[in-house]
Every structure is written in C-alpha cells, then in structure tokens.
C-alpha cells in the first residue's frame, strides 16, 4: 500500500489514481451563466431622466438670458438737482427789481 505523507502535495499518484484522474469531468450548463449573476438593480437616476433635467436647465437659462430687464418697481427716483426749477423765495424783491 502506498504510504501517505501529510506534507506531500500529492503530485505522485498511483496507477489506479491516475486512471481515475483520466475521467472526463462535467461542466456546468452554459445557460447557468446568466442565471448565476444577481439581477442588476435599476439605476437611481436613469439616463433619460438626467437628459430631461439637463434639457430643462438649458431651456430655463435660455429664457432667462433672452428676457429684457424689467422696470424697477421701487419708490420714484428724484431728478438730478440741475433740472429742478429755481425756488422763488423772495418774489416781492424780484418784482421791485424788475420795475426799476
């Protein structure tokens, strides 16, 4: 009987073992490959959704840039001081001066 050494990696087989090793081995059915892989979860943000959002952003930016500036609806602005009419404080003095 063949002796067994625990540290022997087992490369030296007997004739009987070699005959057994010569048997053709089965392979898993090829259709298993698709069955074994777990189903891929749908992406959180599918590509069409992202494309739609991007298109919305572009459209919004276009509208924003194309719209003219609107009037400021705040309190009325004062005209510049040069355009203001002269205030006639001393109207009597002015008239007397004209009569001379």
């Amino acid at each position, binding site marked *: 009987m063949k002796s067994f050494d625990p540290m022997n990696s*087992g490369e030296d087989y007997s004739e009987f*073992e070699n005959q057994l090793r010569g048997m053709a*081995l*089965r*392979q898993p059915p090829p259709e298993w490959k698709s*069955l074994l892989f777990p189903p891929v979860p749908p992406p959180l943000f599918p590509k069409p959704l992202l494309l739609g959002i991007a298109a919305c952003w572009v459209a919004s930016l276009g509208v924003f840039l194309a719209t003219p500036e609107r009037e400021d609806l705040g309190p009325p602005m004062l005209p510049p001081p040069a355009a203001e009419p002269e205030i006639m404080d001393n109207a009597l003095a002015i008239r007397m001066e004209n009569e001379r």
Partner: protein
Amino acid sequence: MMGGAKRGLTAKDLERIHDEHVAAMFRYGLTLLRDEASVRDLLQDIFLKLAQGRAEAMTAESEKTYLLRMVHHGAIDRIRRDKVRRDHAEAQPAETIFEASPDPDREAYRQRLDAALVQLPQEQREVVVLKLWEDRTFDEISHICCIPLNTACSRYRYGIDKLRALLRPVYEEL
C-alpha cells in the same frame, strides 16, 4: 486580486470568477448535494454574496480555495436544513460529476465509478473529489473542509482504498 470583496465585486470581477472557477464549484457542489437544482441555487447564493460584498476579502492565490470553502459551508447548511427532503432523495440516483462517454466500456466504467463514489461517506467523497479531480493539495483541502491536515490525508487514504475495493470487480472483468 479580490481585496475589494467587502465592497462588493464589479460585474467584470464576477464574470472572471465565473469563467475561472465555476466548473470546480459546480462539481464540488454536486459531490456534496448530488442534485443539480440545489447546486444552482447554492451558486446563485454565493454569487449574490460576492456581488453584495458579504464575502471576506481574499487574495488571488487563495481565491479558488476560498470559493470552494463557500461551497462547502453553503452545502453543509443546505444538507442540515433539508435533511428530511434529502433523506427521501437518497433513494434517487445521484447526479454525476463525470461526462457521459460514447464508448460503451468507458461509460460502463463511469457508471461503476459513480456508484462507488456514492457509497463513500460524504466526508471521504469530498476529499477524494477535491484531491483527484480538482487538483487541490491536502493543505488546501484542510482549509476548504475546515479539518486538520492529517484528517484530510487519512480521509483520502480511506476513500481511495474503499474505491479500489469497490472497483476491483470491474478490473477483474476487464
């Protein structure tokens, strides 16, 4: 390298593992469970664990050993869980790990070898299959089956002796 197993493997990694190791995993699962549908379920569970990162990190050198150990643990769990169903299935002919041969003599030998393998205790059968047909060393077998090295050697010796005795009539016929 599969150091990233904790994070889950990519589809590319899974495909590589499948292409390199699934045949050995399939035959080892068949040796233990003896039922193709159960082996398919077991392998699905294992690939799901790998994809979800529920497997420990492993190195390329020990990749096959690690995967076969996953098969071992998964199969033992199933055998314990489905003991009643399995007892009933024992009566059914076991599914074989060998390819059918068109040569009638070789096919007859294959059937006798199948019958002889089934007669081995499961502990001896798995060691013999791993050693003879999956080319694993005793050290690797001891890791896969979670047994001491000497136990792996002795189970192999007893298994081979029993196979030789069971197949002796075939050789005498030839």
